[in-house]
C-alpha cells in the first residue's frame, strides 16, 4: 500500500478484501508520522499502542463496520476517554476526559482506528495554528507557510498522508479554510448534523464537526457514519440522514449553480479568481445553468461573527476556573484571585482577547449596541441564503481570498487574521452546509500552493451538495496532486 495514492474508500476496500491487513495499514501510517511529522507538527499525541490494538481487533474479525481498520486522526478538542484532550491550550495540557465524544465513538463503532490528536489554534480560535500553546503546524506544501486553522493539524495530516482521513471542527471556517490551504476536501455539514457531545465548545450556535479527506466519496462515507441525531446533544437535528448520501457519482440533473458577486471581489488573488472561473466552466460544460444570486449582507459577516462567537465563547470558557479541571495557579490569595490568575496563566492572548470582547459585547450598556444588533444582522445574512437557494442548488465561490500565507505574517494583527474567514463565516452564521474542494495549485516563491474552491448548499441537503461537488472533482481530479515531503 502506498498512502500517497490511496483514498480512504480504496483502503477500506483493500482491508475488507484482506489484500492488506488493518495492522499493516496502521503501521504504515505510524511509520509515516514517525518519518515526517517532526518537520510538520500536525499531531500533538499519537496512540501507537492503542491504534495497533484496534487494528488487530479488526484483523481478528472482532470489529467490523464501514470503516473497519481505517486509520483516522482527530482534532485535539474532541474528548476521548483515553489520552489527553488539550485544545492546544496550557489550560488543558494535562486534561484527561472522562468520556468520548459521540462523533469519535461513532467512528470507532464503525471500525475506525484512531491514530492520534492533531494540533490546532488554542480553543479553535485562529486561522493558522499559530495560536497553539504547543507549536505551529507547517503547511506540507511549503513548510514556511501556515496550514490554515483552526483545524490546521488535521488538514496538514491528511494532506501529507499521515492518516487516511481526519476530523476537525468549523466555527467560522476552521475546516474549509485549512482544507483550501492544504489542498484537501474539507466539509462543514449543516449545523446540528453531527452531535457536538464531547466537542469542547467554543461558540455553541456555530460549532460543527466535519471531515477532511482527499475525495468527495471519502467525505460522504465519514458523514454517513458520524451524522444523525444524538440524545446527548439537544441541538443535534432529528432530521434523517439520506440513505443515498454516499452515492456521490449520481450526477445531479437540472443543476443550477449560483454565483454571488460579493464573493468575486477584485481583491481575490488572481490564481483564486482563475480557479473559481475554471470551476464555473466545469459546471457549464456539465450542462448546469449558471445563475447570479445576491448575498448583499456578506460584508457584515465578520463583524457579526466577532460579536456572536466571542459572546458565546466568553460564556463557554467561564468553566475554566482552576477548580474543577485544568490549570491552577500556585499564587492565589483568595478564590477570585485563583480564578483570575489561573485563567491569565492558562489562556493565550487570542483566547483572552476573545473572552474580553465577548464579555464587553454582553455587558450592561453595550448589549443592545453590539450583541442584539449582531443577532439582527445574523438574521439578514441567513435570509440572504434562503432567498439565494430558491434560485440555485449551490453557490460556487472561493474558500479563501489567497493561498497559504507565511508563518508570522499576520500573527501580530488580529483583525487581518480575522479577515481570513470572509468567505466561510456566513455559512456558520446561517447554519447551512459548505465544502471546500482542491482547486489546483499556483506557484508562489517557487513552491506549489493549493487553492480551494467552495460550494455552499442549503441546510440538510448534504447529499445533493456532495453529488454537485463530485461533478467538479471528477472533471479535474486535483486531489491526486500531493505535496512532496
Amino acid at each position, binding site marked *: 500500500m502506498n498512502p500517497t495514492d490511496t483514498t480512504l474508500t480504496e483502503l477500506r476496500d483493500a482491508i475488507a478484501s484482506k489484500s492488506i491487513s488493518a495492522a499493516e495499514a496502521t503501521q504504515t501510517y505510524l511509520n509515516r508520522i514517525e518519518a515526517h511529522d517532526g518537520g510538520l507538527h500536525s499531531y500533538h499525541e499519537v496512540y501507537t499502542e492503542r491504534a495497533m490494538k484496534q487494528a488487530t481487533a479488526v484483523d481478528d474479525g472482532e470489529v467490523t463496520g464501514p470503516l473497519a481498520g481505517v486509520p483516522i486522526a482527530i482534532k485535539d478538542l474532541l474528548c476521548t476517554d483515553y489520552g489527553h484532550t488539550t485544545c492546544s491550550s496550557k489550560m488543558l495540557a*494535562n*486534561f484527561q476526559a*472522562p*468520556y468520548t465524544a459521540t462523533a469519535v465513538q461513532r467512528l470507532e463503532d464503525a471500525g475506525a482506528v484512531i491514530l492520534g490528536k492533531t494540533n490546532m489554534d488554542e480553543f479553535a480560535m485562529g486561522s493558522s495554528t499559530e495560536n497553539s500553546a504547543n507549536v505551529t503546524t507547517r503547511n506540507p506544501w511549503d513548510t514556511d507557510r501556515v496550514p490554515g486553522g483552526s483545524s490546521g493539524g488535521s488538514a496538514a495530516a491528511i494532506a501529507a498522508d499521515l492518516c487516511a482521513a481526519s476530523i476537525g471542527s468549523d466555527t467560522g471556517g476552521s475546516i474549509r479554510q485549512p482544507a483550501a490551504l492544504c489542498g484537501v476536501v474539507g466539509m462543514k455539514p449543516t*449545523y446540528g448534523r453531527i452531535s457536538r457531545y464531547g466537542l469542547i465548545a467554543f461558540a455553541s*450556535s456555530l460549532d460543527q464537526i466535519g471531515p477532511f479527506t482527499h475525495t468527495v466519496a471519502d467525505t460522504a462515507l465519514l458523514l454517513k457514519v458520524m451524522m444523525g441525531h444524538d*440524545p446527548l446533544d*439537544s*441541538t443535534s437535528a432529528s432530521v434523517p440522514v439520506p440513505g443515498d448520501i454516499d452515492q456521490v457519482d449520481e450526477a445531479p440533473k437540472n443543476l443550477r449553480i449560483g454565483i454571488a458577486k460579493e464573493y468575486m471581489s477584485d481583491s481575490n488573488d488572481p490564481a483564486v479568481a482563475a480557479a473559481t472561473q475554471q470551476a464555473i466552466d466545469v459546471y457549464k460544460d456539465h450542462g448546469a445553468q449558471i445563475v447570479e444570486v445576491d448575498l448583499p*449582507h456578506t*460584508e*457584515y459577516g*465578520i*463583524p*457579526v461573527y*466577532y*460579536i456572536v462567537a466571542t459572546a458565546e465563547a*466568553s460564556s463557554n470558557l*467561564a468553566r475554566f476556573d*482552576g*477548580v*474543577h*479541571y*485544568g*490549570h*491552577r495557579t500556585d499564587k*492565589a*490569595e*483568595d*478564590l*477570585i*484571585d*485563583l*480564578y*483570575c*490568575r489561573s*485563567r*491569565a496563566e492558562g489562556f493565550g492572548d487570542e483566547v*483572552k*482577547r476573545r*473572552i*474580553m*470582547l465577548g*464579555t*464587553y459585547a454582553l*455587558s450592561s450598556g453595550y448589549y443592545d*449596541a*453590539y450583541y*442584539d*444588533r*449582531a*443577532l*439582527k*444582522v445574523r*438574521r439578514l445574512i441567513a435570509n440572504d441564503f434562503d432567498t439565494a437557494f430558491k434560485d440555485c442548488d449551490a453557490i460556487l465561490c472561493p474558500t479563501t481570498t489567497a493561498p497559504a500565507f507565511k508563518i508570522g505574517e499576520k500573527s501580530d494583527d*488580529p*483583525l487581518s487574521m480575522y479577515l481570513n474567514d470572509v468567505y466561510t463565516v456566513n455559512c456558520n452564521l*446561517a*447554519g447551512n452546509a459548505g465544502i471546500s474542494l482542491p482547486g489546483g495549485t499556483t506557484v508562489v516563491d517557487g513552491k506549489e500552493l493549493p487553492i480551494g474552491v467552495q460550494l455552499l448548499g442549503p*441546510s440538510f441537503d448534504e447529499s445533493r451538495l456532495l453529488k454537485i461537488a463530485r461533478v467538479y472533482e471528477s472533471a479535474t481530479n486535483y486531489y491526486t496532486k500531493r505535496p512532496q515531503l
Partner: protein
Amino acid sequence: MSTPKPISEDDVRQVAKLSRLHVTDEDVHHFTGQLAAVLDYIGKLNELDVDGVEPMVHPMELVNVLRPDREQPGITTDSALANAPAKTPPFFKVPKVLGDGPSA
C-alpha cells in the same frame, strides 16, 4: 442608534475583571489597542437599518428539548474529581472564600 464611545484602558480593566482575567498594565495597553481596532471594524454594523428584524440567536430555533424523565447512568464522583488540581474527596478544594484575605 448611537455609536458607543471607543474602548478605553479603564474599560479593558473592567472587562478583564468581569472576565476573571488577571491583567498587567502592559496587557491592558496592548489589548486596548487591539480591541479598539476590532470594535472599530465591528462598527460597520451601524450602517444597517435593523428596525423590526427578529434577532437570530441560533440556527435551530428550539425550545425546551426534554428527554424522558428516567434515571440514567452519569459520571461518578471519582471520575468528576479525577482532573481536579486540588481535592479532598469527595470535594473540590479551593482557597478560603470568606475571612481575613483580601477580596475582589
